[in-house]
C-alpha cells in the first residue's frame, strides 16, 4: 500500500495551519462526491467521535496523606465504595460501583461527574491501623482540586460498533440497552456508526498505544487494546487514559439504567491520519455499510438470538421492520454529542492545539474471544 503522508508531514502542516481536516461525516460525503482516491490525497486527517454509556470506566485517585496517616482498607466517596487494593491512599472509583445508601440512583459514574464539576465529595475510609499508618478512621470532604492525581483510566471504551436490542418476551425488560417493550415493541442501539472512532480505522493501522485523543472534553491517550477486544467481528475496543482534572461534565456524565445500574457516559474522539488509501477507504465507510445484529434481549442467555441484521442508516431512520411490523428505533449513545466531539477535535487541530502521535504499538487486528466456562467440581 502506497504511503500518502507521514505523521511528521501531517504535524508540520498542522503547525503551519495548512492541514486539511474533515469530520468523519464530512469525509463520507466528500468521498461520495470525489471518490476515495481523490479524498485520500486531499485530506490529511479525519476526526471521529462517540458519546455513549461505557461501563468499563473509572478513575485512579490519590488523596494525599492525613496526619496521622491512614492505610485505607475500605474507602467510600459519597457512599460509593472505591477499590482499595492499592497503596495507602490510592483508590480506583469504578463507574458501576453503586452507593450503599442510594443504590442504583447514584454510583461511581456520578462521583466522577461530580469531581469534574468541582463539587464537594464526602470521603470516608477505615483501616486496621499499623505502626506506620496508625489512623483507623477518616471522614472529610474533598474536591478534585485537593487530589494529587485524578486519572481517568477506562479498560474498555469506544466499541467499534455494538449490537442493537429488542425484546421478544411478554414483559417489559430493563437492560443496559435501556427499556425494551414486550413483543418487539421497540429497538435500541448503541455505537456512533459512521462517526465511530474504531470503525474509521477498522484495520487498526493508525490507532494504538500512544494515540492522542479527545477524552471527556480534555486530551487523553489510547494505551492499548481494550478488554474484550474482538476485531474480527468489528467489536474492537481501546483502553484509554486522561487527566480528569482537564475534563468537562459535558463529556462525562454519570448515568443510571433503570433496574440495571450505574454507568458513565464518556465522550471520546480519535483523529485518523490518512496515511494510505486503505485507511481512507475505512474512514469513508458510510452508515448504510455498517451493519449490526438486532438481538433478542428477552432471551436471558449469553447467546441471544439475532432477529435480523440492520445498518446504522436503517436504525437511524427511526424504524425497522420486524415480522412485517414497523418497530420504532432509538439510540442510547448521543449522536448530537458525537458530532460535536468530531467537530471540536477538528477545530483543535485546525487551531494548532492538537498534534497527532504515532503509536508505539498498534492494537491487534485479531484476538480470541473466549467465554467463561463453568466447571463444576
Amino acid at each position: 500500500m502506497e504511503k500518502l503522508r507521514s505523521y511528521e508531514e501531517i504535524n508540520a502542516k498542522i503547525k503551519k495551519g495548512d492541514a486539511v481536516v474533515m469530520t468523519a461525516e464530512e469525509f463520507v460525503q466528500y468521498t461520495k462526491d470525489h471518490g476515495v482516491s481523490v479524498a485520500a490525497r486531499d485530506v490529511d486527517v479525519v476526526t471521529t467521535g462517540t458519546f455513549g454509556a461505557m461501563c468499563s470506566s473509572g478513575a485512579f485517585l490519590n488523596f494525599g496523606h492525613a496526619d496521622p496517616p491512614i492505610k485505607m482498607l475500605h474507602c467510600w466517596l459519597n457512599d460509593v465504595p472505591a477499590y482499595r487494593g492499592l497503596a495507602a491512599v490510592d483508590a480506583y472509583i469504578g463507574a458501576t460501583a453503586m452507593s450503599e445508601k442510594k443504590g442504583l440512583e447514584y454510583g461511581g459514574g456520578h462521583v466522577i461527574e461530580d469531581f469534574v464539576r468541582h463539587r464537594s465529595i464526602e470521603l470516608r475510609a477505615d483501616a486496621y491501623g499499623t505502626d506506620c499508618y496508625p489512623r483507623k478512621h477518616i471522614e472529610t470532604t474533598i474536591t478534585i482540586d485537593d487530589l494529587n492525581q485524578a486519572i481517568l483510566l477506562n479498560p474498555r471504551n469506544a466499541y467499534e460498533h455494538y449490537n442493537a436490542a429488542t425484546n421478544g418476551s411478554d414483559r417489559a425488560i430493563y437492560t443496559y440497552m435501556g427499556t425494551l417493550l414486550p413483543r418487539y415493541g421497540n429497538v435500541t442501539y448503541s455505537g456512533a456508526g459512521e462517526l465511530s472512532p474504531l470503525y474509521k480505522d477498522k484495520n487498526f493501522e493508525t490507532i494504538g498505544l500512544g494515540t492522542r485523543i479527545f477524552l471527556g472534553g480534555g486530551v487523553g491517550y489510547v494505551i492499548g487494546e481494550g478488554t474484550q477486544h474482538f476485531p474480527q467481528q468489528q467489536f474492537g475496543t481501546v483502553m484509554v487514559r486522561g487527566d480528569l482534572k482537564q475534563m468537562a461534565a459535558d463529556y462525562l456524565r454519570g448515568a443510571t439504567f433503570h433496574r440495571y445500574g450505574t454507568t458513565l457516559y464518556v465522550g471520546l474522539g480519535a483523529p485518523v491520519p490518512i496515511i494510505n488509501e486503505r485507511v481512507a477507504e475505512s474512514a469513508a465507510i458510510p452508515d448504510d455499510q455498517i451493519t449490526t445484529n438486532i438481538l433478542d434481549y428477552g432471551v436471558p442467555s449469553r447467546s441471544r438470538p439475532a432477529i435480523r441484521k440492520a445498518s446504522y442508516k436503517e436504525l437511524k431512520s427511526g424504524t425497522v421492520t420486524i415480522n412485517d411490523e414497523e418497530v420504532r428505533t432509538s439510540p442510547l449513545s448521543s449522536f448530537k454529542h458525537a458530532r460535536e466531539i468530531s467537530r471540536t477535535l477538528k477545530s483543535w487541530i485546525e487551531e494548532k492545539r492538537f498534534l497527532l502521535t504515532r503509536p508505539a504499538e498498534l492494537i491487534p487486528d485479531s484476538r480470541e474471544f473466549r467465554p467463561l466456562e463453568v466447571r463444576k467440581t
Partner: protein
Amino acid sequence: MKLRLVYTHEHTSRPVLANTIMKTGVLINILEAQMTPESGHLIVDVPVDNQKLREVVEAFKAEGVKVQEIVATLTFDLANCISCGACVSPCPTNAIIQKPDWTIEFDEKKCIRCRVCVDACPVRVITCS
C-alpha cells in the same frame, strides 16, 4: 386537553364518565384512575378544544365532579439532556421524537403519562408533575 377529575364519595356510585360521554359524544380516554373509599381521582384525555371542551367540563361539573386542567404532564430539563434517545423508542405513543440534530422534542398532547420515559432516562432529566 388532559383533565384531572376529583370525585367525592357521594358521586362514586354514579357512572359519571359514561354519562358525560353519552351527553357530549366526546370519546374521553382514561389515563389514570385511583379510587379510595373517600374519593376518586381520574386523569382523562379529552381530545377536543374550545366550545366542545367547555361542554365536557360543564357536563362533569353538572355531575358534581371537581375538574382541573392539567397544564404540564412531564417536564424535560433539556439544558441537562444529553440527547441520547433512550426515552424515545420506549414511548408507546410517539410523544417523544428526535429532531434531525438528535435533540429531543416532546409533544404534550400525545403523552398518556405512562412514565416509561421517566425511568428510561439515564441522566434523570424527565420529571412527572
